[in-house]
């Protein structure tokens, strides 16, 4: 198949502008949706964010430590059930965990099937001097890897999808994250969308202005100029934001409202979770 140089260049140009616009759009859309789910009424959404964050962090640690495949698979099923019980649409869970993980981590792990030595189970053929064979250890390794990644990603997705970011930030404070970092995280999150919007406009503007083809060096210059523009705008914005903060009485000190209270249900959730995770870990150790 031959592609004329002009066509090829056209496709190239379409590539980087459209990909960036799509990327920005997806990021914003995903966050808006996850905020919508986090605002719904559901089991996990009702749990105190501190309890949820602590328990999920512990769960991530236990999932990292567990060796047993059956246990990992069991934990995964439990989490999927939890996701459905908390009224997340099946499509969202499936997209984030069932489809996304095997597609990405699966592609990453596929070559390992042929690279890990062991008792050969399945011989596929030979490529010159190298014989392609799948060994028992390779299958075990790849399955363990995929299971662990799936459980971890499901855990992270459940946390992100059921917690509003403002609550998540509040929860970080309990874990002795300095206020300074929490405020910076919060403000960054706010301005990320503004700058993403600016980026999107820069790229959309270019797409609508450009007719015909442009040279590769022009594209590079333009990308550099957009990065530079974004830089100078955000620096200017930071001065403006600071001036606005000072005008509203900001003196360099960070004050926050902490209005979270753990209810009995939250303590119950934490205790049950810790017992369950501890049991899983003990069972794993005894195997």
């Amino acid at each position: 198949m031959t592609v004329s140089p002009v066509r090829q260049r056209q496709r190239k140009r379409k590539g980087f502008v459209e990909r960036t616009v799509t990327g920005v759009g997806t990021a914003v859309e995903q966050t808006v949706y996850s905020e919508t789910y986090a605002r719904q009424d559901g089991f996990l959404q009702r749990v105190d964010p501190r309890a949820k964050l602590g328990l999920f962090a512990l769960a991530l640690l236990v999932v990292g430590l567990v060796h047993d495949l059956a246990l990992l698979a069991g934990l995964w099923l439990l989490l999927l059930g939890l996701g459905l019980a908390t009224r997340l649409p099946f499509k969202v869970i499936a997209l984030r965990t069932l489809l996304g993980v095997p597609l990405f981590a699966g592609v990453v792990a596929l070559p390992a099937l042929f690279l890990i030595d062991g008792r050969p189970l399945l011989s596929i053929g030979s490529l010159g001097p190298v014989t392609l064979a799948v060994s028992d250890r390779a299958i075990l390794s790849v399955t363990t890897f995929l299971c662990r990644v799936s459980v971890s990603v499901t855990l992270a997705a459940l946390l992100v999808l059921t917690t509003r970011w403002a609550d998540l930030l509040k929860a970080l404070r309990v874990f002795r994250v300095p206020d300074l970092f929490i405020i910076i995280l919060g403000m960054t999150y706010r301005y990320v969308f503004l700058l993403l919007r600016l980026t999107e406009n820069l790229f959309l503007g270019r797409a609508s202005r450009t007719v015909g083809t442009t040279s590769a060096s022009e594209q590079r210059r333009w990308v550099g100029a957009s990065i530079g523009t974004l830089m100078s705008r955000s620096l200017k914005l930071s001065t403006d934001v600071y001036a606005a903060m000072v005008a509203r009485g900001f003196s360099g000190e960070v004050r926050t409202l902490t209005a979270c209270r753990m209810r009995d249900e939250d303590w119950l959730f934490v205790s049950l979770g810790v017992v369950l995770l501890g049991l899983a870990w003990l069972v794993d150790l005894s195997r």
Partner: protein
Amino acid sequence: MHIPDGYISPATALAFYGAVLPFWWAAAQRLKRLLSGQLVPALALFSALTFAIMMFNVPVPGGTTAHAVGGTLAAVVLGPWAAVIAVSVALIIQALFFGDGGITAIGANCFILGVALPLTGYGVYRLVSGRSDPLSRRRLLAAGMGAYIGINLAGLLVGLVLGIQPIFWSEDGRALYSPYGLREAVPALLIPHLTIAGAAEVIATVFGLAYVQRAHPELLERRAATPRAARPARRWTPVIVALLALLSPLGLLAGGSAWGEWGSGELAQRVGYVPRGLQKLESLWSAPLSGYTLPWMSPSASFAEQALAYILSAVVGIALIFAATFALRILLRPRQGQQAAAGN
């Protein structure tokens, strides 16, 4: 290039959290002095900016596109410590709110992309640019070289971190985490970084800096005018510590054990008897990385594997010391009510 959850063992993840905390702390201290009250909005905007730069698709020679990190560019324009915080916050937001990169791996990702990349890139930039004019072409070359070396160092580090997983964390030949050894993981990460990702990073850095030189020279001149507190002794400490950690396997070449570090068995051989108190003490504590090898590593491991075990032991040890010191610092610091953290 972010490491997702489940790719690295909890021990690796924790060691990286321990390694990255002192850098965050040092960066916060420096920036508090430099930016004073403006610290919060400035760092928030820098972080949001880094986040946005990471979304850029950069056209790379050969027709493909790739994402840039922009760590070196941020270090050159905003300063190295601001870049450390900005890239780290951008990565944390990606992990916590966008599900991009693992939550357990935040420490590793922030250390590699948020500390090693911008600091290395900036170091190379300073080395090559010397005392040249901030608006000269030499600065562009320096930034490009810094960006290329920085991103490749990051790629190499990710390769090494993933590659040691099956060496240290395997069970009867079954890899428990990322299944690729060093022989596969390092080239798999280095080759795209030497080519596509490296090119994207260089293009974003050089063309971005060229634009800032042309359109907003005041940003670069202001940075050049900022007084720098020169403390050579302290600046070299991390380099020396890292060198010592890398040299730690030297001991493998020498026979016997270090003077005065004999176990009771060896002591009996040398002295003829073992003090009873020592025998009792010895049974109290058995170190998790006893003999600086890992309990699950076979005694017949090759020299390279033993050397790696040594380096890892050294890194884990240093990280633990850092973490413990840091924890002590936090615990012993007097609480000044709710507003403790913000500088003025």
